[in-house]
């Protein structure tokens, strides 16, 4: 066997044809039956074709053996998105009585190069389920590693939420969200996870118990980056349907005022005030003045609240022209409800 070419990175070795490997003796490779159109003989990677031809053979004969397991490993390494291979691997694992911990290790290897692969994550979950609550900390650690490379990986977040609910491990989750948000306060996935934790964690007391401290947390993030969509939505979500509480929490409109006064990145501050006005909020003079001072053209005296809403929508139409139609609609809504 030729020595591996070191320049090609981890996992690449000179390919030993399966036809010359003793463990695959007696297997007749089956090529893919592709249906319509003449087969055009174009050369492609021998290792790939051979692996898949051998896979098809063992799969169609339903051989649930150690060499089948090896073959699925090879097939997955060349084509990790082939769901039939994963499916067959699971059948083999069940038949052979697998070492589930070892299998977790296998998926970790695959994940290194294919972190956005549906089949991988589904397989990982299936294995973790076999291990039960004991697997919780390893699963949380695994997703944590994935987030180090891509903190918004949707599959990993979905997996992590499942782990928490099915296997446990909530204790450090809020801290973990805080850590991720420290690294990137614009990480919408982390904000979503934070909401998930405060509403569903069995050890935190639920949304009502957490609301107060979370309002402060969100507002701090807002002041650091008022253009950040996520904490604004998070803040609104803390009140959910409780409009009275939302209206009466002075921290909310104070936060909006502070952003307006800075005269930069005030889009979400204005839209939040617009929402509040729509629910009956009575702004003080300071807020009215702050809005007025943002107007770039003379729109007349800001008299009644509907004029104020009108002003806000006009400002936003200029500030955010891509969504001009949306702000025009908001303006219509505001005047029709006054």
């Amino acid at each position: 066997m030729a020595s591996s070419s070191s320049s090609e990175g981890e996992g690449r070795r000179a390919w030993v044809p399966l036809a010359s490997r003793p463990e695959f003796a007696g297997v007749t490779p089956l090529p893919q039956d592709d249906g319509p159109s003449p087969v055009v003989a174009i050369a492609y990677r021998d290792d790939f074709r051979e692996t898949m031809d051998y896979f098809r053979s063992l799969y169609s004969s339903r051989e649930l053996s150690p060499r089948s397991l090896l073959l699925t490993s090879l097939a997955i390494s060349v084509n990790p998105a082939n769901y039939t291979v994963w499916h067959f691997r699971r059948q083999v694992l069940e038949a052979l009585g697998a070492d589930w911990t070892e299998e977790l290790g296998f998926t970790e290897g695959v994940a290194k190069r294919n972190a956005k692969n549906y089949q991988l994550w589904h397989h990982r979950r299936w294995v973790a389920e076999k291990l039960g609550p004991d697997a919780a900390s390893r699963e949380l650690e695994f997703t944590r590693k994935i987030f180090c490379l891509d903190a918004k990986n949707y599959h990993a977040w979905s997996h992590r939420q499942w782990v928490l609910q099915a296997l446990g491990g909530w204790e450090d989750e809020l801290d973990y969200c805080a850590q991720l948000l420290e690294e990137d306060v614009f990480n919408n996935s982390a904000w979503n996870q934070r909401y998930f934790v405060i509403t569903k964690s069995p050890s935190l007391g639920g949304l009502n118990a957490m609301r107060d401290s979370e309002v402060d947390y969100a507002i701090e993030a807002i002041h650091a980056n008022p253009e950040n969509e996520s904490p604004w939505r998070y803040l609104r979500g803390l009140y959910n349907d409780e409009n009275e509480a939302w209206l009466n929490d002075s921290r909310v409109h104070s936060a909006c005022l502070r952003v307006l006064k800075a005269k930069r990145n005030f889009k979400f501050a204005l839209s939040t005030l617009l929402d509040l006005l729509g629910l009956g909020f009575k702004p003080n003079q300071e807020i009215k003045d702050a809005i007025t001072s943002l107007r770039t053209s003379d729109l007349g005296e800001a008299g009644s609240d509907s004029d104020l809403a009108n002003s806000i929508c006009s400002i936003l139409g200029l500030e955010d022209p891509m969504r001009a139609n949306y702000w025009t609609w908001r303006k219509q809504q505001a005047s029709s409800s006054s």
Partner: protein
Amino acid sequence: MGELVGNKHVEYILSVERRKDDFLSVLMDHLRMNGAYWGLSALDLLGKLDTVDSEDIVSWIMKCQHESGGFGGNIGHDPHVHYTLSAVQVLALFDKLDVLDIDKVTGYVASLQKEDGSFSGDTWGEVDTRFSYIAICCLSILKRLDSMDVEKAVKYIVSCKNMDGGFGCTPGGESHAGQIFCCVGALAITGSLHHIDKDLLGWWLCERQVKSGGLNGRPEKLPDVCYSWWVLCSLIMIDRAHWIDKEKLIKFILNCQDTENGGISDRPDDAADVYHTFFGVAGLSLLEYPGVKAIDPAYALPVNVVNRIFFGRCST
């Protein structure tokens, strides 16, 4: 502004469909059924479905059917609800739904519904609102929605609604444009759009439009042509499409074309693929770009095909 090089895209799609043995096509052979749906739907939208041999394709599709009634991604592959929908959709394109044993397919899809109303993708049990949409779309095309518990299915989808008005893959999952399309589409087909706060969701969706005019799938992510479909489609289903800047979006999609070799990519200057070609063309269809047939937002099939399914033979 550039223009749609429709003929180049047709050539590109046909060349991909013809490719049988090169590395890329073998890599994708397990999802050939999806590829067939993307490629053939795009051809139909560009008015060129007649350039392919429907008989060949139909007979290949039927060879992909499993004894359970579900379809695999290719011959010899295991069944999955996703490939089952693609198979049904392609048959619908060719007006060949009558080759199906409707009971058989229906039985497979309906069997994937769980106690809580959710759907798994196959017998291995992975749950995701994508599968709810797929099941509902598929059974609706087959006119067998009564084979599932629609009320429970809707209830599950609604449980995946988030405080920002969007939907995730499972309850509590982050709002994501792809998942939103699935949930809104499923609710549209089942006549359940009243569960959506259209103003709130519409705003979240229109906030996906970034400076370049393209659309992203979540806050602070990069734009991608496929979101031209998922975001725009969702906006159309809730009557809020005018909240984005359509001209800018058209420009973005056109910039994602490979004007030399044909095909559309995820964003400008990346490599084209059939998936993004379909979603780019479909997005232009929703934007009423001239020369592109109208597409139905809920079924993701040309409007004339959907009309044919539900209202019988009509003029094309």
